[in-house]
């Protein structure tokens, strides 16, 4: 009997734990033995999670309950806005509210100058405080003295030009050229799909945004010569356990994030780690010692989103915007000249 109690103490006590243990997941392998990361993975649910952390949060990687409640409230407000049956005060913009379509430049008499704001993907409230996870304060490190000087010179030069004197005054995204490696995978209002395909010695990563595709050798092939430069860089991968590590170099000088262009020394190290059947953890370290005083890292989960297909985004197909922006600026020039 005494043994019976002992047995029960061991088994009965453990039972609730056993019952709650999620079904074990093991990393599947491809036929040739590499970890299998294939599938479509989206960043949709991270829309709305800020890139950088609020300074008040300091080293806290998760927001407070109070802030989480604010994020939940924001999602409810978005839902109410998106599903309002009629146009009303709730759906009209407010220049004092701030944010997309709600600034003095983009909102007048309750009408926004943008597209209908409810025609975009929406995220889910997250406890993750910021997409930047390192440095520990979740803030992109300061620019180097050299980069600060260059930024000041650019700002000065910018003041001498109009908004659209040339197509070159507009961004490379507006010109449908690229959003770069980072911009193509960071959560956005649309085109948040990414597809991973594998074959022996090669991983292919498709981004829905601007339908970029990177072919990433994982067979030890060396990088291209240093003088070969592209917007999406030159990627080489290898496996560390079940993690795909991708090092990308050979970038053209281009914006990375927050209006800051990279130097030719930019090096990105991305890590793709499948956490379960529905999640790939994405982590990217931005290392450009000529631009930032130290490397910094973004991390967020990519998810399997039921029913998500990657659609083509042939961005230049109907980019009437560019001719409108340029011809509109010429009309404004004429008006100024006539005064």
């Amino acid at each position, binding site marked *: 009997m005494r043994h019976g109690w002992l047995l029960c103490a061991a088994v009965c006590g453990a039972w609730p734990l056993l019952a709650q243990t999620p079904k074990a997941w093991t990393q599947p392998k491809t036929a040739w033995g590499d970890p299998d990361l294939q599938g479509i993975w989206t960043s949709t649910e991270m829309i709305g999670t800020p890139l950088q952390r609020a300074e008040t949060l300091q080293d806290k990687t998760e927001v407070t309950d109070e802030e989480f409640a604010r994020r939940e409230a924001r999602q409810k407000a978005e839902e109410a806005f998106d599903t309002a049956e009629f146009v009303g005060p709730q759906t009209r913009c407010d220049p004092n509210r701030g944010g997309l379509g709600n600034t003095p430049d983009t909102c007048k008499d309750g009408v926004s100058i943008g597209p209908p704001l409810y025609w975009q993907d929406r995220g889910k409230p997250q406890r993750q405080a910021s997409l930047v996870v390192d440095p520990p304060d979740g803030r992109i490190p300061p620019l180097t003295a050299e980069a600060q000087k260059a930024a000041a010179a650019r700002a000065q030069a910018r003041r001498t030009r109009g908004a659209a004197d040339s197509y070159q005054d507009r961004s490379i995204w507006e010109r449908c050229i690229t959003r770069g490696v980072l911009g193509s995978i960071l959560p956005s209002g649309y085109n948040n799909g990414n597809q991973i395909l594998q074959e022996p010695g090669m991983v292919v990563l498709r981004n829905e945004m601007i339908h970029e595709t990177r072919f990433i050798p994982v067979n030890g092939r060396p990088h291209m010569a240093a003088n070969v430069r592209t917007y999406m860089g030159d990627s080489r991968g290898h496996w560390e356990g079940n993690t795909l590590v991708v090092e990308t170099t050979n970038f053209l000088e281009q914006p990375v994030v927050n209006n800051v262009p990279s130097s030719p020394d930019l090096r990105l190290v991305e890590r793709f780690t499948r956490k379960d059947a529905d999640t790939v953890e994405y982590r990217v370290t931005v290392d450009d010692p000529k631009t930032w005083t130290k490397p910094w890292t973004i991390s967020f989960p990519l998810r399997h989103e039921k029913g998500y297909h990657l659609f083509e985004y042939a961005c230049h197909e109907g980019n009437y915007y560019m001719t409108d922006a340029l011809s509109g600026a010429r*009309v404004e020039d004429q008006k100024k000249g006539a005064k």
Partner: protein
Amino acid sequence: MRIRFSQLALLVALAAAVPVRAHHAFATEFDINKPVKLAGRVTSMEWINPHAWIHIDVTEPDGKVVSWMVEGGSPNVLLRRGFTKKSLEPGTEVVVEGFQAKNGLMRANGANITFKDGKRLFLGGSNPEELPQAGK
């Protein structure tokens, strides 16, 4: 320090490099001082990237018909949110609030688009399971 034009173009290009939500700066394309309210009949919808355009014919008080183009959202996200080719058939009467293009063409953004009865053009529902499946 002198800056070459190519460098300038680069830095200007940065302006939209942050994770913003619309593909381009609508305030560069449309004039916030030229508000329009258009009541018209849909003639077609261009499902094109980076943003879809709705074509409408507006009959002015003197009977003259003016064709307008109205810029909307990006086709991929429209489809994901449940907007299909059937959502806006030719002939449908709509009312559009927005701003006219700076170049004076009959183009406007469509911040608020409603049916004749005042209902908003499309009630968002971001449920991927409700997506129309390819080939159906």
